Structures are given as C-alpha cells and as structure tokens.
C-alpha cells in the first residue's frame, strides 16, 4: 500500500519565460501634443503641421486598435491569475489521481 501512497511523478514541465508584449502609447500622445503646441506663424507651415497632427491622431487611433487586437489574441488571460493558479492546482490533482488509479489497477494481484 505504501507504494500506492507515494506521490506520483508528474514529468517536469520546463518553465518557459514568455516576453511581455510591448505597447507604447505615450510617445504618440507626446508627439501630438508637441506638434499642436508648436503653432508656427507661417501659414504653409501651419497647414503642414496641421496635416501632420491629424495624421498623428490617426496613428494614435491605429495604435490603440492594434493594442486591443493584440490583447484579444493573447493566450492564458481568460481568467485572473488567482483563478488560473487554482485551475492549475486542480489539474495537477486530477493527473495525480489518475496516475494512482492506473498504478492501482496494474498492481492488483488476482
């Protein structure tokens, strides 16, 4: 019976470090505010600056949308970390129980 009670070996899964996704929004906002604050006197420069500004605002919008779509594609973030760790623990227990069951069936002496 002692053999059955010992903790079954769960094969070690190597810890894989995943790099976090880089989302930079502040530089784009800073660029927009700077280009608005420039306010050149020259009309042509003003128009040019205005066009650049609107282009940067569009870029900000695109950056935000891209960030949202990247976040939606990420795996493993369906639950909070605590919930995920609870699920991980229950999976480990389930695996251990099943391995014990198989060992018990194989060791039964008829």
């Amino acid at each position, binding site marked *: 019976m002692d053999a059955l009670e010992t903790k079954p070996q769960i094969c070690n*899964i190597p810890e894989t470090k*995943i790099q976090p996704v880089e989302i930079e929004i502040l530089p784009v906002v800073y660029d927009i505010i700077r280009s608005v604050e420039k306010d050149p006197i020259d009309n042509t420069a003003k128009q040019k600056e205005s066009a650049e500004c609107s282009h940067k605002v569009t870029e900000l919008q695109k950056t935000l949308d891209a960030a949202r779509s990247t*976040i939606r594609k990420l795996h493993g*973030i369906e639950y909070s*970390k605590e919930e995920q760790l609870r699920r991980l623990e229950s999976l480990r227990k389930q695996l251990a129980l*099943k391995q014990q069951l198989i060992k018990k069936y194989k060791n039964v002496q008829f």
Partner: protein
Amino acid sequence: MSSYHLSTRERLLAIINDIEIVAKELIENTIAPKAQKMSSTDHAQLVELLVLKDKELKATLQLAAEQAGIEKNMDALREQVRKQDEEINQLQRQLKEAEQILATSIFQARQKLASIAKANKRPVSSEELIKFAHRISASHAICAPLTWQQGDLRRPYPTDIEMRLGFLGKSDLNINGHNLQHPNSLNEMHRNASTVGAGGAGGDIPASAPNQFAWHPSGELHMSMGAGAGSVSLDTRAHKDASQDDVEVMSTESSSSSSSDSQ
C-alpha cells in the same frame, strides 16, 4: 474600484480605454482656446493619470506574459491527463473483456462438471458402447455400404424379405392353408425379387414370392386370395406414405430398445 475579480484580458482592455479617454482629454485641452483650457493643476493631474495608466498597462502586460507561461504548463498537463484518460479507458475495456471471458469459462466449466457428475452416477463401460455402436452400424442403418449403387435393393431398414426371414415371418402362422416355404438365403430372395421386378412393368405384386402377403407399390399390404383371384388390400395404415412411417417407427423402436438394454 477593485478590478481584481476581472480577468486579465478585461483589465488590459479597460486600461487601454482609460488611456484613450485621458489622451483625448489632453489633446482636446491642448487645441482648445485659452478661455476653455483647464487649470494647470488639472492638466498636471491628467498627465500624471496618463503616466500611471501607462505603468499599470506595462505591469498588467507583464502579468499576462506570466499567465501565458502558466497556460503553456497547463496545456502540457492537460495532454498528460488526456493520455491517462486513454490508458484508463483501455484498461477498463480489457478488464471488461477479461470478466466476460471468465464468466463464460466458469459457466461452461460448471456445465461440464454437472455432466461429469451425471455421467459418474451411471457409468457405462466403453466396451459395451462400442459393442452397441458396432451392432447399430453393422446393419448399414447409419451409412450406406461402400458398394451401394442406385438400383441396389438393400435398404437401411429391414425390407419385407428380411422381415419374412425373421422370427415373425418364420412363425407357423398359416393363413388360407398355405404352407410356408423357407428360402435358403437372403441373396436368393433378392435375386428372385429383382428378376420379378425387372419382368413386371409398373411394379406389380411379385408372384414368384410364395407367401400370400405382398407389398403393393402404393404402400398397401395385399393378401392373395387364391390362384387368379386377385388380391385384397389390407388396411394396415390410413396414411398416404405408410411405408415411410413404418420405417421411422421401426428405427425408433430399435434404437429405444437398444438404449433401454444399455441401462
């Protein structure tokens, strides 16, 4: 407002929305005319809020990366659990098969034990069995003789000729004053019968037979009334194929008598 009960994905999307709102506020404040601009304190607070939200975004993205790593581990665990499930199912199937085979074997073994006990109650010597088997098969009742051909008069049942040669046929039952004549051998009788059979068309009553009783082809037993007087059919049985039934009764009786003898 605590957002810890939310999933990480929902938290990230909420932070992005907040950053968008604050950034819009700041840009609108920058392009607004002087009269509508907010105070510098408010502006500073907005900027601080934006920076805070950005830091929160980065921290949450770091958390998301950790969770992605945990999810990979969980996927590997799920794969192992799936393999264990398959193994358990296979073991279960094998156990069920083994149980079925064992149950069938035990049932058959019990039946065999019962038949052994039954046989041991009334033992029969093998010599006696062989003797009776020999007797039954000697009369060619089980299998035709190897030399048997179509047209051979031999039958697996006793024919009328053989019956006449038997005890009943040789008894001194003397009807109509006819004396019984005893033919020398069965072969002589067969030869006589075959010649008559060949001569007569349609299988008439064999006149060469000295006995008054004869079998009609229709299956009825005919008794000859005298020379040239014809014959009268005896109603031995009312059935159409009476000869066949007689055979069956004969064969059954012989087997039952032999089996009763063996007891």
